[in-house]
């Protein structure tokens, strides 16, 4: 097991009370696998990994256990974390336009990683960095290497981000909505790139997204999140063919389909995402669910194993 997360709970302390962003979440990642994490904005999917990376906002606290290769990494000091971040695991972010430093050349932003973690000289670090730019498909890498971020397109910047995150050959790459800010045609290229690199470098990848289409093409296993909790876990094929949680079903139904011309308008899940400051006692999805029962409002369903490699948190026996 590469990463083992147990009972992770992340809270933010704000002026109007505590926000329960991640609630008692447990999952694991095997070496080399690709895990997809889906959910709406505010479902806690990003904050799980911010907690793991030690990048929570100042008012955030995380509790629980996060074991990386068996070693507890939650609660490590910044200095200790810095021996792991960018080395053992890296993260790329949603908005490549603002995630690169606009005042520094790509060259500096890449070589500094190797200088800091590998103790390389500037010359070697440059050579290694340019090789990675080639690997992620940046044309004229030698010339591009000397440029500033604003001289790149969005897709190219995300490629640079990916190259930068791979400099120390991490075992785990966390991609937080890597294609959300990009053009549709570029999205597919970036997803394909991440998939290829994962395979070629035998690197585990986490793909955080609200776009089920992205997950379908890339992941082995999928976690569905709602209200800061995991509500369903399944292999990607099973999730698409036989979703077991009403929320997952709703997500699948709200995907636009080219082959279905019968519906005049797109399907949406009614209602609003839950208020993370006042989660209900029962199931967080109950107010929006089409199958709500008496018990759903009173008792929160626990995540239960329903088949090999499948879990769900729902009182309903069979959704279909």
């Amino acid at each position, binding site marked *: 097991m590469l990463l083992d997360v147990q009972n992770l709970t992340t809270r933010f302390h704000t002026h109007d009370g505590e926000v329960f962003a991640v609630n008692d979440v447990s999952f694991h990642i095997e070496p080399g696998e690709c895990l997809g994490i889906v959910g709406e904005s505010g479902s806690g999917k990003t904050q799980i990994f911010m907690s793991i990376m*030690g990048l929570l906002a100042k008012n955030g606290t995380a509790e629980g256990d996060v074991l990386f290769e068996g070693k507890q990494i939650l609660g490590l000091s910044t200095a200790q974390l810095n021996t792991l*971040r960018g080395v053992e695991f890296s*993260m790329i972010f949603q908005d490549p336009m603002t995630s690169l*430093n606009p*005042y520094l050349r790509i060259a500096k932003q890449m070589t*500094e*990683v190797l200088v*800091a*973690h590998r103790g390389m000289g500037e010359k070697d670090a440059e050579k290694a960095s340019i090789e990675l730019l080639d690997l992620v498909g940046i044309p004229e890498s030698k010339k591009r290497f000397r440029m500033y971020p604003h001289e790149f397109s969005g897709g190219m910047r995300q490629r640079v981000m990916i190259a930068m995150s791979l400099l120390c050959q991490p075992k785990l790459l966390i991609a937080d909505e890597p294609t959300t800010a990009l053009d549709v045609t570029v999205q597919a290229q970036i997803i394909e790139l991440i998939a290829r690199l994962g395979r070629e470098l035998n690197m585990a990848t986490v793909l955080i997204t609200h776009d089920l289409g992205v997950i379908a093409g890339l992941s082995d296993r999928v976690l569905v999140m709602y209200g800061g909790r995991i509500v369903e876990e399944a292999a990607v094929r099973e999730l698409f063919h036989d979703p077991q949680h009403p929320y997952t079903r709703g997500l699948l139904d709200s995907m636009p389909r080219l082959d279905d011309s019968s519906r005049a308008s797109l399907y949406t899940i009614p209602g609003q995402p839950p208020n993370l400051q006042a989660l209900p006692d029962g199931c967080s999805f109950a107010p929006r669910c089409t199958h709500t029962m008496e018990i759903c409002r009173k008792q929160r369903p626990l995540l239960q194993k329903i088949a090999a490699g499948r879990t769900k948190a729902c009182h309903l026996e069979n959704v279909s």
Partner: protein
Amino acid sequence: MLAYTLRRIGSAIPTLLFIITIAFFMMRLAPGGPFDRERQLPPEIEANILRAYNLDKPVYEQYFDYLINIMHGDFGPSYKYLDFTVTDLITTGFPVSLRLGMSAILLAIFVGVFAGTIAALKQNSVFDYMVMGTAMTGIAIPNFVMAPLLALIFGVYLSWLPVAGWGGGAIAYQVMPIITLALPQIAYVARLTRGSMVETMNSNFIRTARAKGLNERIVVIRHALKGGLLPVISYLGPATAEIITGSVVIEAIFDIPGIGRYFVNGALNRDYPVVMGVVIFFALLIITLNLVVDLIYGFLDPRVKVE
């Protein structure tokens, strides 16, 4: 960039002409003249003096004469400091003022940036509140209050520093004037730095730098400061203007032989050429420094094309 610089210099000419015109006529509108004394001069002597300085001509003629003269680099004689031309006064006074002003600006940048950065990194800490509180006080107290206050405390009561004078430029004489000049600027720079560093430290690229496992010192110094200091760089133009106007008051209070003192004495004595000369000189200085600041800005932020 050369074309840009030339264009900026070209656009400065109408500005300068406007300043000269306003200053010229405002001086003439002020009651009294350069040779009015409590004791009335005999009319024929007064007429002689006025004729000697061309003050007997109509004002608009004097104005055009003045414009023609300054285009030849002739800023005229001082009416008060006899045997001295305005150019003489500026060239003797400027090195002194420059020394004061530069020291004040450098002090303001170093102390202000340092205090502001620490305040930003330790946001909402006691240090932060202390720096921001002191900064507010620094901005609120005008220099003509601060100068006598410092002179009273450190000069009169404690006798640590000379109350006034220049002492040939000895350090002890410079301390209080420089600090008085720098204080409000330190305060502004500290507030600017804090605000912009707080914003920068919350930006996505700082999150990236941390995700790369860089240590916090590199994150701050290499990744945050360059962007965080841009507002300070832009403020350097106005800061110079404030230091210059401030030095007029400070030099008068501490009796320092810089241009500021000549300017004040010139204004009091209706020494028209001195006042005009200093106004033009200051205007040129501010225009030039603003241009320099813009060029530096373009150099620091690769996204800004100076053209």
